[in-house]
């Protein structure tokens, strides 16, 4: 069963075609990683799926047309965490996570006890309860990313859209955040669609990769099929070797020509 189906998605921004007839699908509880060089259209695709950009083509979830859903209805199904979310520096972590309950509140409504319980639960899950009373402006990079995920989780989405969830994080925190996301999809059955810069991490965590180039799908499939030396050399104009780690995931290593000596 395909949880998310993207069918011939086309997006124009400022009269420039950014995405051409992009189609791909990911099954329920899966993790689809969008990879590709800068400007390939990864973020645009994510924003279009989130319903934040006008587009042609369809985004369906279990045969439900998401384009027909508006506002809160869509927000109950899809949570979107942009690459650089706005974190009001003086808002407390608790209040920020509670914003995730917005799609469930009526126009005049205020978050009630049940909403606070859901927010607390999400905070607990991402281990941010300890600093629930702190200001967002006082958090470290790793703490911020967890707080953003906690807000998304409080939204109780079926689909989590993450734009570069590991940018700005050191290697340990990157792995920690990716493991948390992996736990969410395994524990809650959340389907994850994310952009990822690091090809090795994309291969380690996602079960389906879509390689975008110039707004088109270059290749899609399981990591081992997409992460090949020839394809990366062609699409990224980069020289890499691809090996396999003990877990069977492809590892992409950049290589450099030996520098030429002065006598050459």
């Amino acid at each position, binding site marked *: 069963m395909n949880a998310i189906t993207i069918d011939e998605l086309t997006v124009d921004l400022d009269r420039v075609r950014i995405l051409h007839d992009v189609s791909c699908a990911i099954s329920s509880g899966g993790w689809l990683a969008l990879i590709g060089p800068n400007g390939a259209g990864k973020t645009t695709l994510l*924003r279009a799926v*989130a*319903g*934040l950009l006008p587009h042609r083509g369809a985004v369906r979830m279990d045969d439900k047309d998401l384009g027909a859903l508006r*506002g*809160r*209805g*869509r*927000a*109950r199904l*899809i*949570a*979107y965490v*942009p690459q650089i*979310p*706005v*974190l*009001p*520096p*003086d*808002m*407390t972590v608790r*209040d*920020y996570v509670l*914003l*995730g309950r*917005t*799609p469930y*509140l009526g126009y*005049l*409504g*205020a*978050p009630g006890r049940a909403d606070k319980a859901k927010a607390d639960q999400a905070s607990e899950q991402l281990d941010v309860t300890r600093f629930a009373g702190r200001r967002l*402006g006082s958090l470290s990079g790793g703490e911020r990313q967890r707080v953003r995920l906690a807000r998304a989780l409080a*939204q109780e989405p079926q689909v989590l859209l993450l734009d570069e969830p590991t940018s700005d994080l050191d290697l340990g925190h990157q792995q920690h955040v990716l493991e948390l996301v992996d736990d969410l999809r395994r524990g809650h059955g959340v389907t994850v669609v994310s952009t990822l810069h690091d090809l090795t991490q994309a291969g380690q965590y996602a079960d389906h990769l879509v390689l975008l180039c110039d707004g088109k799908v270059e290749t899609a499939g399981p990591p081992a099929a997409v992460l090949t030396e020839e394809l990366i050399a062609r699409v990224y104009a980069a020289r890499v070797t691809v090996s396999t780690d003990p877990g069977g995931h492809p590892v992409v290593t950049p290589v450099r020509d030996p520098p030429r000596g002065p006598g050459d």
Partner: protein
Amino acid sequence: MTRTRGRRLPAARAYGVAAAFLVAATLISALVGAADLNPLDTITALLDKIPLVHLPSGLDAVDRAVLFQIRLPRIVLGALVGGLLSVAGAGYQGVFRNPLVDSGMLGASAGAGLGATLAIVYFGGAGPAAVPVAAFAGSLAGVAIAYASGAIGGSGTATLLLAGVAVGLFLTAVQTYVLQRSAQDLQQVYSWLLGSLSGATWQQAGEILPYAAVSVAIVLVHGRHLDVLSVGDEEARALGLHPGRTRLLVVAACALAAASAVAVSGLIGFVGIVVPHVVRRLAGPSYRLVLPLSLLTGAGFLVLADTLARTVVSPAELPIGVVTALVGSPVFIWILRSTPAVRT
């Protein structure tokens, strides 16, 4: 207040402080003035007006008239004006995610100034009733023109604010031109521009009350929506909010609140920008708290400012706009020094 350094007041206590401030301001203002009212008798006379409370008061007929026909209407009008300007300022700050915005933005003050000037210069014969109506209409028209111009220029809060600045400058230029050609009205226009609550009546308070109630209710209802907007339009949309619709509604309500205040008081600056900031320092940035607390605190602040305006150079009066800035600025700087920063 240094006690709160680095810490925020819990919501219940913040409401208590703000309400106590308004009550204290009301009592001080009721007791201070040219006529010497006995404090105890004044308080019992005021309490006696509360439904179901019956207290004998020793005030004689003259003192009662001073209290209920001169001081109290002025207090109520001052509280209304201060509360409206502060709520409007806080609402605009939330909608534009900009701490420097106040109730006179978006052509509101300039429009009111032009309206009042036109009424005084060309419809002086229509009597004093024409000025508030013209100021009210001018203020709303100023915001409407600014909003429409901003919408033409594209979406986004910066465009809207820039359009507001442009419209404000344009309307002020027209006003200056009109004034230039009728120097005999300069004094009257100028004194209106500086703001005053002298001559306040129950009737004035009654006239703006419906507009005040509607606009304040709309703004307060959107406190939670403004909190969502603080993460930016795109994320707010991803959370299911309609940023454009929210912005239009809140701006319209704030414009109505500010126009109602301006109609009866003239242009009083400073309140709409400073009060919300003081409140934020004490209670944190959530608009669910900032909006109602600004209403209470702004009301108390203007009642106190007006008390100074009518007593410092008694029997003459200072323009209230001068008092709010003259006394308010140092107090504001002191509060900035003694409480933790809160960015919007």
